[in-house]
């Protein structure tokens, strides 16, 4: 196949097509239904479009689209693997020779291509002199595997939704959460609309993975946000749902604002949004025309020297080894290795070297960006990821987002949307400075711990899962932050499977219990819902890190990465301890959930009696996901935590996505020769067994505790709750984040907006009033009239004109004597004016 990359483009566009079909169909049908009484033609249209019957056709269209996308992705995956094979490049060789290979693959548009969406400026007919916003696609290992994961899980969720959303197929749906004057709200079913939104969401997410540039990512980013808004607010009659939808979108927008700042800096200083071009500009090439370059792959930091007299060339000096690193990061030409090119520092081993920099925005020349600004750019983009991946401190929206239908929670909040943030950190990894990465790591560490503690006290089954999601995403961020790129993304993939499983399982429970979500009303459901219970158990085991389940492999990798990092940097010990402890907490709250739901005595007879196993449309996806949660990460030998085939694939992807192992936060001694990444990896390898055992121990403790409390009942949770009432309240109120934000951000914003409104009303219109009063005062000063002027106070200019007119009127006193006086004054005025004019004329 000549352009296999287009398979992915097609896979992305399929859900969009589905969305458009459903949108136009639904919109026309709705319009026709509303107006059919007035026009027979519209009635005919309405009958053609399906009439009153509510069908499952929208679901079939959407599911077919996403399933088709999955097939395309699978084909693409196989083709990509073959392509890899025929090119015969070793992973290691790729790392060093990546660029040429990459370009060769890109040049013919095979796996990557782009076109200019907005192109500005045709200066000197030079394509580089102009600014262009591109749309394009870039398929590498990371993208292929992400595509596969997203389409697979999305397909299963679509199938599950056909069952779960069947309530919406009725002509009249009763919403028990909404009370009106006539009892519960009755509304028309919205089956088609749900699948329309799902399709748009899938498109946005796939487009995000497809993108070869930050700008396209940003577009998808916003689209994902609006889709989540629409889906969370699906039951928009419920105030809680619309509030949650608003909260989700606005919180995401806070992150997006940071993202925009990052984009601004990249755009202004680096001049391109294309990932490969950004990396090529920020990181030194590995080779120049004379061989390997000393600082290859690293940020080259230099100090600005004096500018050349013409002001357009700036000399930068790279400090010698041992000196403090420079304040500027050198930007390299995008196609540095084409033609004759001298790398920085070449020929003089780590000696001071000079590069000539032009301040022009020129992708074919050098440039420079302040190091701190690059850090800010990284943090800005990371803030976007924080919003989307619900990291501390923007995690508040995710639990509220459980207001959406459960399949939505599964799709958005487990496998895809929140994954987008982690994915982007992975994708943009080479542009993060070590300070930025450290922030990412600590953000992850705080998030994973905070979320896990809150999950302990939640009683809503979906909220427990929501917080576990936040916590697991924290793991991924932590891993990325400490340089465990592969570990973080590996966990992203495995987590997608078992979290989708858990959410769909909880959806099955909720469906079986007639939309009851409180675990305090469940219990003993295993007998009634065996398939759901057992598949969920698989998910719980996986997330707890039970050996041989997928979660074990990935969590192990994360802990090893963290351990390796902290063993080199002892001062960041917390980055290892937090995930280790939280592993135990995770096990505890997951088993708490499972025990509360499926074992013990039924706590609510009514719920229990009506509980039933869900239809096959919902259980089949569960079984499939359970199988994946157990075995998708297996390798040979199965019992070796490091032998996972998927992890190998991700590791392989690392060489392509970030094309060398730069970018860990320990490049501060980059002059010294010995690669610190190497020492971290070695430390990790050395402690691997120890870390594995520690993790197992932590998880085991969590399990035993949960087992003791909720199965054996040796401890009464209610008693513990009373004993630690303060702590419980603190956790149950989610660390008071909502209250904090309300007091610190929302209310001040509303207050400021009130000020602005009042400023218009009081100050600006008040100025008008004051101005008017001034003129009234002027007219009153004469003391000869008073009526009439006061009436026009309301309006600035009207009053002014009225005042002036009134003043003139007042001159018409009717008193002979005042006229005389005015005459005299006028005469004086004229004399003085003439005198002045004459003097001017004489002088001039």
């Amino acid at each position, binding site marked *: 196949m000549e352009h296999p990359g287009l398979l992915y483009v097609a896979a992305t566009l399929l859900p969009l097509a589905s969305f458009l079909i459903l949108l136009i169909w639904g919109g026309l049908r709705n319009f026709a239904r509303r107006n059919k009484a007035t026009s027979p033609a519209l009635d005919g249209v309405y009958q053609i479009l399906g009439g009153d019957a509510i069908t499952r056709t929208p679901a079939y269209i959407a599911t077919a689209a996403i399933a088709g996308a999955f097939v395309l992705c699978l084909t693409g995956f196989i083709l990509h693997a073959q392509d890899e094979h025929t090119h015969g490049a070793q992973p290691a060789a790729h790392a060093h020779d990546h660029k040429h290979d990459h370009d060769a693959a890109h040049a013919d548009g095979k796996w990557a291509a782009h076109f200019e969406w907005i192109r500005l400026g045709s200066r000197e007919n030079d394509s580089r002199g102009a600014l262009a916003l591109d749309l394009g696609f870039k398929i590498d290992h990371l993208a292929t595997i992400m595509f596969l994961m997203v389409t697979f899980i999305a397909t299963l969720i679509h199938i599950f939704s056909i069952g779960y959303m069947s309530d919406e197929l009725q002509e009249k749906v009763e919403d028990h959460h909404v009370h009106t004057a006539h009892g519960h709200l009755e509304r028309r079913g919205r089956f088609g609309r749900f699948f329309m939104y799902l399709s748009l969401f899938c498109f946005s997410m796939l487009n995000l993975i497809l993108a070869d540039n930050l700008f396209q990512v940003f577009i998808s980013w916003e689209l994902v946000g609006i889709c989540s808004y629409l889906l969370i607010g699906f039951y928009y009659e419920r105030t809680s749902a619309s509030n949650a939808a608003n909260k989700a979108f606005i919180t995401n927008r806070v992150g997006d604002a940071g993202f925009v700042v990052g984009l601004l800096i990249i755009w202004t200083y680096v001049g391109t949004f294309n990932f490969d071009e950004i990396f090529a500009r920020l990181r030194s090439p590995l080779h120049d025309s004379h061989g390997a370059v000393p600082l290859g792959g690293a940020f080259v930091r230099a100090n600005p020297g004096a500018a050349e007299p013409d002001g357009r060339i700036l000399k930068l000096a790279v400090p010698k080894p041992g000196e403090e690193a420079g304040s500027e990061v050198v930007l390299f030409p995008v196609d540095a290795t084409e033609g004759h090119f001298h790398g920085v520092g070449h020929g003089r081993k780590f000696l001071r070297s000079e590069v000539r920099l032009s301040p022009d925005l020129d992708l074919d020349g050098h440039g420079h960006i302040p190091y701190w600004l690059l850090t800010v750019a990284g943090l800005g983009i990371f803030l976007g990821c924080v919003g989307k991946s619900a990291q501390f401190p923007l995690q508040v929206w995710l639990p509220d987002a459980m207001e959406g239908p459960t399949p939505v929670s599964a799709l958005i909040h487990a496998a895809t949307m929140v994954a987008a943030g982690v994915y982007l950190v992975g994708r943009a990894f080479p542009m993060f400075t070590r300070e930025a990465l450290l922030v990412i790591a600590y953000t992850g560490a705080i998030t994973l711990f905070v979320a896990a503690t809150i999950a302990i006290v939640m009683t809503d089954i979906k909220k427990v899962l929501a917080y576990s999601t936040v916590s697991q995403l924290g793991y991924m961020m932590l891993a990325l932050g400490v340089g465990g790129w592969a570990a973080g993304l590996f966990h992203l993939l495995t987590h997608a499977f078992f979290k989708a499983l858990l959410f769909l399982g909880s959806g099955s429970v909720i469906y079986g219990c007639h939309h009851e979500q409180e675990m305090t009303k469940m219990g003993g459901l295993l007998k009634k819902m065996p398939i759901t219970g057992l598949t969920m158990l698989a998910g719980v085991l996986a997330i707890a890190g039970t050996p041989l389940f997928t979660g074990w492999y990935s969590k192990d990798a994360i802990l090893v990465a963290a351990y390796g990092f902290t063993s080199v940097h002892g001062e960041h010990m917390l980055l290892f301890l937090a995930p280790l402890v939280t592993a135990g907490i995770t096990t505890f709250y997951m088993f708490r959930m499972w025990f509360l739901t499926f074992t013990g005595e039924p706590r609510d007879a009514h719920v229990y009696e009506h509980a039933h196993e869900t239809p096959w449309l919902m259980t089949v996806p569960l079984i499939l996901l359970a199988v994946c949660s157990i075995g998708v990460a297996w390798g040979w030998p199965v019992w070796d935590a490091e032998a996972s085939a998927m992890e190998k694939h991700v590791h392989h992807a690392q060489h392509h996505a970030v094309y060398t192992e730069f970018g860990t936060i320990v490049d501060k001694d980059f002059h010294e020769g010995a690669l610190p990444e190497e020492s971290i990896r070695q430390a990790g390898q050395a402690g691997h067994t120890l870390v594995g055992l520690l993790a197992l121990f932590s998880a085991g403790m969590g399990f035993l505790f949960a087992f003791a409390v909720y199965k054996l009942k040796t401890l009464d949770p209610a008693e513990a709750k009373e004993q630690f009432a303060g702590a419980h309240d603190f956790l149950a109120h989610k660390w008071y984040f909502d209250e904090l934000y309300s007091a610190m951000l929302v209310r001040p914003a509303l207050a400021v907006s009130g000020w602005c409104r009042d400023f218009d009303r009081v100050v600006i219109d008040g100025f008008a009033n004051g101005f008017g009063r001034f003129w009234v005062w002027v007219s009153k000063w004469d003391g000869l009239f008073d009526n009439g002027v006061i009436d026009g106070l309301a309006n600035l200019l009207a009053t002014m004109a009225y005042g002036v007119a009134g003043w003139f009127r007042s001159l018409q006193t009717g008193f002979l*004597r005042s006229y005389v*006086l005015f005459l*005299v*004054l006028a*005469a*004086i005025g004229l*004399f*003085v004016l003439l*005198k002045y004019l004459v003097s001017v004329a004489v002088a001039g």
Partner: protein
Amino acid sequence: MKFPDLHATLFWVLAIATALSAISVVLTQNIVRSAVWLLFSLCGTAGLFFLVGADFVGATQLIVYVGGTLVLVVFGVMLTAQGPFISMKTSAVEWAFSVVAGVLFLGVLVASISQGTWVGGFVAVSPADSTSAVTLGESLLGVTDATPPAKLLGNDNPDQLLERTRMSYLLPFEIVSVHLLVVLIGAAYLARAKRRRGAAA
């Protein structure tokens, strides 16, 4: 100039008398006394006219103004002056305003007088050139050469001075006379006795 300069002495005497009388007209609250001060002022002016050789004008001033107009005024005063209306006080504020305005005005006038430059300068007409009533009358009638050529002040172009016109003031004089007649008839008509509007009350 010889000392004592008769012209200067007379000027100062008459000017001061005139000015003081005028000021008294303003300051006096009693309208009858005002009229008397006005009489002095007008007489002083007439004296000044004689001083600058305008005999006829001075005489006319005495006859028409002092003899006619002022008597008219005094009659008016007497016709309307009844008890409380003789003096009508104006407020101090108005006085202040008026005086300020007046002083300003005077300042402006004096300033412009002092800065004025007049073509030909300030040479007084010698007594020999003084116009007698006869000359004036002739020029009014336009019958002698005494009528001066109409000149345009400040125009030095000699070509335009060639166009001399002998100008007669007879027609304006007649117009003024008719005007006076009309006015007097009108005044008589206006002032004719009518029943008072408020008489019944």
